[in-house]
């Protein structure tokens, strides 16, 4: 098998081309000197990016998305960490069902989550839609991801380190601050990054639950209908793709760092 590429290897390469090909057209056309996303390519330009940066409503929705993303990721991680500690460190009756319930947002179509939140906010609580309602929906969507990342990190290091700290006289809180938190840090950071990306990229819940202010995906969606806005949309899309890719790689590297230091003696 060595030397000659196997059929599976060729398949894997074709798979990667299918996975990345369509998305890669976006940056290609965004640098093309034309108002249409068409072949043949005309010439290189960065003017679409310049006009994107001059677009105030885009910048405003970018700001909204950043604010919502940061609040959501911090909140989801802050409530996820104690929950993950509870499910990995304590013998809990009903722990299994509780964890399954926390994974529910993964298997409910997001349009159902969106309309259910819309109904309770508008028809039962009689509140106005705003970026806060979007944030509430995003926190729910982030919980399964934050839990998965944090629990796998907490399971990855030796419990006896925490027991040692307790035996040496630290109380539960100081044990958490001086032992658990530093060891869990890579998981916490990758949970923060992943929840930020989920919120930053999420469209359906934001589309249903936003009031007068747009998040970036909602703004982007409103632009997709206008063919003359296409180059700016492509530039914006490419920038988002690049930004998310960088964050994902960063989160992954951090998680790897965590896994390595979990080996005894590596501390």
């Amino acid at each position: 098998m060595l030397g000659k590429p196997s059929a599976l290897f060729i398949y894997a390469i074709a798979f990667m081309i299918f996975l990345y090909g369509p998305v890669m057209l976006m940056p290609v056309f965004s640098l093309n000197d034309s108002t249409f996303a068409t072949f043949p390519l005309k010439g290189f330009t960065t003017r679409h990016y310049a006009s994107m940066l001059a677009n105030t409503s885009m910048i405003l929705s970018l700001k909204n998305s950043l604010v919502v993303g940061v609040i959501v990721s911090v909140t989801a991680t802050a409530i996820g960490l104690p929950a993950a500690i509870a499910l990995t460190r304590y013998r809990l009756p009903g722990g299994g069902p509780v964890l399954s319930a926390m994974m529910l947002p993964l298997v409910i179509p997001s349009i159902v989550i969106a309309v259910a939140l819309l109904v309770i906010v508008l028809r039962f609580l009689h509140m106005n839609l705003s970026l806060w309602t979007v944030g509430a929906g995003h926190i729910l969507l982030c919980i399964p991801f934050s839990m998965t990342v944090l629990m796998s990190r907490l399971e990855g290091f030796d419990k006896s380190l925490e027991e040692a700290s307790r035996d040496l006289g630290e109380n539960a809180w100081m044990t958490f601050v001086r032992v658990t938190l530093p060891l869990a840090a890579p998981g916490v950071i990758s949970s923060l990054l992943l929840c930020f990306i989920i919120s930053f990229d999420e469209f359906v819940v934001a589309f249903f639950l936003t009031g007068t202010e747009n998040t970036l995906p909602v703004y982007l969606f409103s632009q997709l209908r206008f063919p003359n806005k296409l180059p700016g949309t492509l530039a914006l899309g490419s920038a988002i793709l690049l930004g998310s890719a960088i964050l994902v790689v960063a989160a992954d590297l951090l998680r790897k760092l965590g896994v390595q230091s979990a080996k005894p003696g590596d501390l």
Partner: protein
Amino acid sequence: MTSPKPRRQWPDWLAGYALLSPALLVMAATLAAPVIALFVLSFWSQTGFDIDRSFTLANYWKLIEPSSEPMVWMGIPFPFAYPVAAILMLKSLVMSLVATVVVIAMAYPMAYFLAFRVTRHKALWIILLTIPFWTSYLLRVFAWKIVLGYNGAINTGLKSLGIIEAPLEFLLYNPIAVMITLAHAWIAFTVLPIYVSLEKIDRSLLEAATDLGDSRWQRFWRVTLPLSAPGTIAAALLVFIPTVGDYVTPTLVGGPGGTMIGTLMQELFLRQDNAPLGAALAIVMMAIIAGIVALFLWAVGYSKMRERSR
């Protein structure tokens, strides 16, 4: 010598639930309460701008109310007074099912390659498969509009190569475009779960099968595939369940012929202002999906399958 302070020990379950309580409260407020509210609303009715809060089954009745003149769609008669709901429901289920089957058929060999053939740069392959998982769903769907559109990459590419004269119009705005786009958008979610289930397989079982005289295909059918089935089924459900209610893909690449149940739900809530009917539709959709999933898991003997592969 000072004696150590006696530790105030909470019982494990109490301390555990205290730590869980913020998350459980958030889940109750953002998931349980809204779903209950949706359920309650589905028994009320819309009268102009107001909601009539008297209990009624009218919304559910509207979804199944029979009519003597069936509407025929794809050769199937739908004998309903409001046939659009039933038609879109069936269409969404079929489209997601096809997309799911395509996704699994494409993802499985990739996962197999990753688990059994990749020896070097495994981390690189995994991160390359992870990145699309986390990049904007909206943009991944939009990319297909650029690929398949009337003035899209395929049409203008083929035209500039001189293969076609006029743009092909059948590429975009139809159910096939929706299914291709759904498959592409969700495939990133499936490779890794299948890979994990393949990676867990005890290699000595495979060696045993070979030693006992199985050919490579026999070994795959009798050992590898059954042992990886639970992970593969879980991956399939993670695609099927959310795609039935997808809104983005039919809206962007579906056109009038590619609408799905999510499109109707959006119409009912945001345009036609008939939230109670929309709520009933959402409840019925979830019930149908849950029913299909339960039936499927029972039919394949999922719980026994999981026991075996442990």
